[in-house]
């Protein structure tokens, strides 16, 4: 009988506690895509944590979609990788910025990036582009990644996630031809589910 009680405590109690946990994070993890009327196909620049991004690769819009997590931040040692996953005219595309010298221990520490401009040509920084199955580290001509605003978001007075918003532009070579990735903008909610430090 004692064992039964113990079993009950071991299995039922954690389930009840899990059920009581805040389940509304899901709402803020969804993407809200509001098209920029001045840059068709791209989301408008926002700082609401809409979980969207977009940029023109030459003239083709590369944007987040509704079925993949649009952004992950992975910290390895002193390098921070910002991965943006989406599509461009039906093709899967993954863009990764690897920034050396930034290693926030947790997502709440991302606020140190607030109002920061990163020169992508600086030593140690790399940009990787994967289109379909082909992945390559880009040879940059020039480029910048700007964190315009990083906010710690409290929902009903409880810390929920960080909102990371900014812009990016760079020039590189694709198939030996110079290409501009322009008017890039992003607005991400970064929390437990998409921040990793290992």
């Amino acid at each position, binding site marked *: 009988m004692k064992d039964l009680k113990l079993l009950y405590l071991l299995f039922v109690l954690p389930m009840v506690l899990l059920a009581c946990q805040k389940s*509304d994070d899901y*709402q*803020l993890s*969804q*993407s*809200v*895509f*509001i*098209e*920029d*009327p001045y840059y068709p196909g791209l989301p*408008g620049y926002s700082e*609401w*944590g809409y979980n969207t991004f977009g940029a023109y690769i030459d003239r083709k819009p590369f944007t987040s979609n*509704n079925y993949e997590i649009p952004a992950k931040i992975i910290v390895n040692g002193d390098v921070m990788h910002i991965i943006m996953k989406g599509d461009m005219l039906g093709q899967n595309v993954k863009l990764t910025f690897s920034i050396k010298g930034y290693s926030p221990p947790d997502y709440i520490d991302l*606020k140190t990036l*607030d109002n920061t401009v990163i020169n992508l040509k600086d030593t140690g920084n790399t940009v990787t582009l994967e289109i379909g199955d082909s992945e390559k580290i880009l040879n940059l001509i020039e480029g910048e990644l700007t964190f315009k605003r*990083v*906010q*710690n*978001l*409290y*929902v*009903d*007075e409880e810390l*929920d996630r960080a*909102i990371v918003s900014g812009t990016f532009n760079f020039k590189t070579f694709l198939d030996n031809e110079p290409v501009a990735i322009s008017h890039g903008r992003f607005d991400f909610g970064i929390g437990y589910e998409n921040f990793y430090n290992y």
Partner: protein
Amino acid sequence: MKNNSVFFLLLIILPIPGVFCQETQNDWMIFIHIESGLMYPNSKIRKSIPIRQNVSSYIVDQVSYGEISSETNGYLFGVRYGYFNDKFRAGISSGLRYTNFNTEIKGYSSYGTDFYYLRYSMVGSDTKFARVRTISETNNFISVPVELRYVPIQFEKIGFYVKAGAEFSYFNIQSKTDIDFREESMEEYQDEILNNITAPTNRFYSTLYGSFGIVYGKEGRPKVMFDFSVPSRFLGKNNFALTKADYFQAFTLSLQIPISPIK
């Protein structure tokens, strides 16, 4: 106190020309109008109210499972004292009117939820959202309407009229804004949040309106009047704290009771 004096003065002054007219102008008739109606302001959520996923422009292509909307409507009751000239088929009336407006901002952040996110603070790198079910506002006005009415078509029992009017209010007798939070613990922040998001309202409420109507009843007996306003204007700005409204439409049902015999 000053405002109350103005209304008492009007109440005393209004009947005087009626009595004068009654004795000197045989074509004048005197009526009491008891009215009630519904008002529908064409309101939009103020851009200064920071609601996540609230997109005010319809030009853009939006992909979101959320929806935010606002609704403002009102009702009115009033009593007017009026004169009507049978020869010119035109009349004037004035009195007192009570108008109540209710505004509600409601919505959801995605299917299956009953709340949306309201940003109420941005200090340094900290941003705060509250999960809100509805934000509501109530305004109550006492106003003095002045109406001109012309009846171009009159059959034995039915007449058709056009009306133009204006109303002026010196004060909002009661204004209240309220937030229905998803988490009860947020109630203690309500005043702070309302201070951060609402715009100050104009105490002087006034409108200018026109309408078409139909009147039914026998001469010398009480008549029923129903009118439908054309899109009419709020003269002042900032009548509501949560929404912006420049125009409104109204339906009014009134009873016209003669208090002087036809000569």
